[in-house]
């Protein structure tokens, strides 16, 4: 069952000499329960693609159908409500609400709908995320890995058709990264949710069903994760893509904050 369909998506930034074509006629589709990974060097247009699919950014042309509805045909308010009910977002720097506890953060999209959360579902998610004993903690009292798990819980609580993850492991150590990837796979396999994830770390694409590569605004689908290596995107020792500039360095959690080794780089 086709969940996501992207048709000839174009996005241009700037004018004249500063003009950058971030997306050039990007088209692809994804089925229910598929796990897709998008790779590409820094500035290639990965995040722009994700933001356009999620309705956070407007495309210059093209269409994005989610569950058969073109999100660009919706008004701002309608799109926002559609987004919180049908799309789950996971950001590199978590973006948790600092004033809300773990549990409140997870049920936040439901609260925005003024809906009463299903307590069984909340318990299940807290259990799956391993946060049951931290439910009353504030984000400031959690490690980076735990914060990202909360963000994943928040993205999954509404059972969205699509989960968009922008470098979800970018700020995490390797153990936390593995945990996060496990959870995303679980979302895709167990809950049959379509997941589209941006990453620099080629090792993480191993779990993906499909791998897309964005280069100079153009999207190509790689046959398998190993194909990515052949397409000219070299891999460093710990799986990072070489040649990108680290932009997220300053947001990164310092080594050993929760007693673990530092993880992948951030975009």
């Amino acid at each position, binding site marked *: 069952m086709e969940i996501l369909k992207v048709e000839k998506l174009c996005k241009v930034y700037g004018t004249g000499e500063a003009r950058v074509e971030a997306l050039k006629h990007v088209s692809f589709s994804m089925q229910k329960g598929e796990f897709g990974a998008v790779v590409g060097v820094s500035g290639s247009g990965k*995040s722009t693609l994700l*933001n356009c699919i*999620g309705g*956070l*950014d407007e495309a210059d042309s093209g269409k994005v159908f989610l569950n058969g509805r073109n999100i660009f045909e919706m008004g*701002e*308010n309608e799109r*926002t*409500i559609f*987004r*919180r*009910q049908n799309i789950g*977002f996971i*950001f590199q*720097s*978590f*973006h*948790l*609400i*600092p*004033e*809300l*506890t773990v549990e*409140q953060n997870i049920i*936040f*999209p439901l*609260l*925005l709908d*003024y809906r009463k959360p299903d307590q069984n579902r909340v318990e299940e998610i807290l259990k799956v995320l391993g946060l049951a004993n931290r439910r*009353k903690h*504030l*984000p*400031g009292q959690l490690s*980076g890995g735990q*914060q990202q798990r909360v963000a994943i819980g*928040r993205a999954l609580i509404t059972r969205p058709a699509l989960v968009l993850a922008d470098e979800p492991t970018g*700020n995490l150590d390797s153990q936390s990264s593995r945990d996060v990837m496990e959870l995303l796979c679980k979302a895709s396999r167990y809950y049959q949710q379509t997941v589209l994830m941006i990453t620099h770390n080629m090792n993480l694409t191993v779990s993906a069903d499909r791998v897309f590569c964005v280069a100079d605004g153009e999207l190509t689908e790689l046959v398998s994760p190993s194909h990515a290596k052949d397409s000219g995107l070299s891999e460093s020792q710990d799986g990072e893509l070489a040649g990108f500039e680290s932009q997220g360095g*300053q*947001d*990164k*959690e*310092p080594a050993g*904050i929760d007693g673990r080794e530092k993880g992948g780089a951030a975009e």
Partner: protein
Amino acid sequence: MKHYLDLIKISAKQHRKQNRMTRLCIVLAVALVSTIFGMADMEMRSQMIQAVRSDGSWHAGFVMEEEQGELLKERPEVEHTARYGVLNYRLSDGYQIEGVETVICGFDKEFLEMFPAAEMTEGELPRTRDEAVLNESAKTRLKVQVGSTIELLIPQGEAKRYHITGIVKDTALEAEHDAFGMFLNMEEFSFLRSMEDGPNQEELFYVQFRPFCNIQKAIREISIQFGLKPEQVRQNAKVLMLMFQSRDPYLMQFYCVAAILAVLVMLAGIFMITASMNTNIARRTEFFGMMRCLGATRKQVVRFVRREAASWCRTAIPAGAAAGIVVVWMLCWMLRFLSPGLFEGLPVFGVSFPGIAAGIAVGFSTVLLAARSPAKKAAKVSPLTAVSGNAGTIQAVKRAAHTRIFKVDTALGIHHASGSKKNFFLVAGSFAFSIILFLSFSTAIDFMHQAITPLRPSAPDISIYREDTANQIPAELAGQIEGYPGVKRAFGRGYAEFTDAESGRKISVISYDEQQFRWAKKSLIEGDLEDAISGKGVLSVYREGSMRTAGSRTQIFIDGKSRELSVAGILGDVPYMYSSKNTGDAMETMICPEEIFRELTGETGYTVLDVQLQKDASDAQVQAIRKAMEQACGHSVSFSDKRIGNREARGASYSMSVFLYGFLAVIAMIAFFNIINCISMSVSARMREYGAMRAIGMTVRQVVRMVFGETMTYTAFGVFCGCAAGLPLNKMLFESLVTSRWGEAWNLPGWEILVIVAVMLCSVCLSVMGPAKRIKKMTVVDTITRE
């Protein structure tokens, strides 16, 4: 960049918008303080002009002998002395020029400097014993000029001749009593005085002390030196009060109230600046953490914050002081515009140095003091904070929002407001202070209403009256005078006394024309004015213990015959009360239309004819009225020119109203801007968080509701605390200003609370509108990826 502090300039360029808000806050606080102090200063100057105009610029007057006066001059604290003596002050001692009672004054030339109201309009002072100066009304009525000779009849029966050497302006008292004033040199005056033996004929030495001298102490010393009794010492109360030199217990209380208000104004300024600085620094925790991370010591961070605060002062304080000056100019302009004659002494572009000094002192010291705690806070930021993604926000939160009681957006808004206790108390405190200030200053309005009686709309400029209350002024004269140029209105009142059939007491009955009835509408307690106007009944003036009610009937005796009158209504009070000639007690008064009055008395004339003049009426036009009066009534009536007194009363009332309502307007305006600025700053500080919420699926409306929730939390707490602290203060100030003097009991200032709360609620609505626009325009992607 040569020094790490050069980063301040670079950072200022980057954060121009946020810094602009902090600057604006400093500007507002400084403007508030310098405006209020500047206005108070201008009000004092304006009151001083009024006081000097009506009472003179002398500080103290001593009744003493000439030799003592010579010694007085030699005292070091005495700047000027002027001898002044007056004879026939009560216009009943028999000093007459052409049959008109004349006040005889003797004075030194310094006296004119101390009494600007007695300004010479032509000629010069009398030098020899046979020279005299007359007042203007004497000049006009006697048709004399400088150089003419007049004859003064003194009580001892002698007629003395004087050459007129000059003319002085009328004083308010002379004009009102239509008296002649004659001014002699001290030698001649002393001679006339020596012929008197009455106790009222005294000679005063007016004194102006040197600046910065302790006047009360000087007066005490002078009294001891010359053995003066308290009744021999006069003080110019108004002038001394305005110089903060009075020791009158009531005025001491007044000074105390002024000091409390001054402290409140300063505290309001301090609150505003501290709140804004706190928000500004708290928002940049990450930046300071980064500085620490790069190797800046705590001391260096503190220095950085302080220097940055000082750099804001450089532009914000002069701007605030300038704004204060401009507001004061506007108020002064308004006063000069409203009453050009009275306030010409006020400078057009007057600068109040005490106001500016207060503004600068509050601004500069508060900014530096307020920078202390954020600076320390900034210095304490761990370098770790800078490198974690959620610096500045996540670390600050200590407890979770209550999403069970309120909807999540409102709950977050409330939490944003109350999350940081310090910030909450500062912002809500600054809101509360606006209310406290407003409630405190509003007592000054109550004081004004009691202290300065504004002129009633019926107040005449000229009164023509019969001292014997006979209704002999022809009614046609009113119509005739009304047709004269410069006359706005002329209206008369008849007067009669009847006996109440029930109690046997005398009742005074006054006739009103329709216009006077209309003016009385405000005082109508019960009944129908129209019934009185149409002649269906009379109006009774309320007296304690009186049983009369609207609709009741009363019997009166007129010339032995009984007559029934219907009471159409009850008036609270009337401007005219007559006392019983026998007992001196105020009589019961009834007002009836002219028709009934004529029917009752059979008389068609008036006992009083009041004239209201146009603003630009000239003295010649007033003289024309007098002429008409003299033609119609001869010398049987008196003429009272109340223009000077009216102008003085109007001036004092104008100036105080403009300044006091000005204070309130400034406070309301500051409350308004403070709320808008606080909310704008808070929203700017949380823009990134709002972006994240928008990304997760919060609609613009929900974000706006969140901001509204935050604003309302500050406001509700501010209003609660403001009322809780402001009402007792209002009561205390009211009791010391009003109750202690006039006995009026304190009431809950409902209107005042309503006005300031309405201003605050309007500000809340407006304060949310700006951020709402910004949130609507915000691009989610840019916001969450920025910084």
